[in-house]
């Protein structure tokens, strides 16, 4: 493990901690409990990966398996975040429970089918299910003309993160030996806590914006 890896690990952990501090500072802990859960899990897993790396080495089998299975745990935490977004968007319609149950069923069935397969493929597919669910949620938000700025930015930030990860895992599946993956995925991990930190710090809970301002003409 070189100095670049240490710097990346340190930056990723620091940004997650900063985001957690932002959520707590803005007193959004109860409303966005799942985000706190995800951030806490990310920090804990980041530290555990570091410890395993120190004890077993970066190229060890135990680090490899821990990395990909902890990644699956983080993805499931992200699904909880997604479910909480669903429940906020559909809260007024009273169908949140149905949507959550359907989404959880989708995740559970895809994980069941994929657990026996190779770790890369499992992560790639879990992230892709996340992309589909986020896209459906974003579609519903546009249709319902959701105007809560903070919620819009949180969902879009998550969408960017999941799409980038699903795409890069798919590409990694096709070209596994490329050196770029060693750094790219770690750098991409900074996006989500950084964009959420910005949202919690700069966008007040009561801020509103028209969905039409956000939707690009190509997707209208």
């Amino acid at each position, binding site marked *: 493990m070189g100095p670049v890896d240490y710097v990346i690990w340190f930056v990723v952990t620091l940004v997650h901690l900063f985001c957690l501090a*932002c959520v707590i500072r803005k007193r959004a802990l109860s409303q966005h409990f799942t985000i706190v859960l995800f951030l806490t899990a990310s920090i804990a897993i980041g530290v555990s990966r570091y410890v395993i790396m120190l004890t077993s080495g970066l190229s060890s089998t135990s680090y490899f398996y821990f990395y990909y299975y902890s990644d699956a745990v983080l993805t499931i935490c992200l699904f909880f975040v997604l479910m909480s977004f669903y429940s906020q968007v559909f809260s007024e319609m009273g169908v949140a429970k149905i949507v959550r149950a359907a989404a959880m069923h989708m995740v559970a069935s895809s994980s069941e089918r994929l657990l026996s397969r190779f770790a890369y*493929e499992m992560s*790639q*597919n879990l*992230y*892709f299910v996340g*992309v589909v669910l*986020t*896209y459906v949620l*974003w579609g519903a938000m546009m249709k319902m003309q959701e105007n809560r*700025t903070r919620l*819009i*930015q949180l969902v*879009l*930030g998550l*969408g*960017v993160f999941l*799409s*980038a990860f*699903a*795409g890069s895992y*798919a*590409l990694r*599946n*096709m070209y596994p030996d490329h050196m770029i993956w060693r750094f790219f995925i770690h750098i991409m991990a900074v996006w989500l806590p*950084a*964009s959420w*930190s*910005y949202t919690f*710090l*700069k*966008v007040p809970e009561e*801020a509103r*914006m028209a969905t039409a*301002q*956000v*939707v*690009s*003409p190509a*997707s209208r």
Partner: protein
Amino acid sequence: MIPALIFVVSSLTLLQFFVSYSRSVIAESKAHELSGEIREICGVTTRSLAGDQFPRLSQLIDLCPQGGSGANNVWAVLLYFHLLDFARKFSRWAVPSLAQWIEAERGGCAYAAAVVLDRRIAYNRMMMTQQASHY
């Protein structure tokens, strides 16, 4: 075959989510009224800025120390601006009708950068005033 399909679909959704995200950051910054000082720096009297001012504003942001709560999404806007620049070059020969929309979007990026600069100048001015009051 499946990874290739996932890659293509994910790339398309990534593009759409990123464009929407950047537009939401720009739309949110438009709620901020620019100060007279920034208007003077940018040489504008209206609420809109030309996209060509973005590189200069971006350089000024780099010169101005970041303060307070710190977080700003200027890097997301910067990436969006470069994406628009690429689209502008491509659209010149492929879809000329897009040029006007792209120019308006570049102007939005410049406005978002001006807001970041405005906030940083205000923060630094406040810090200087506080420091001066201690002496």
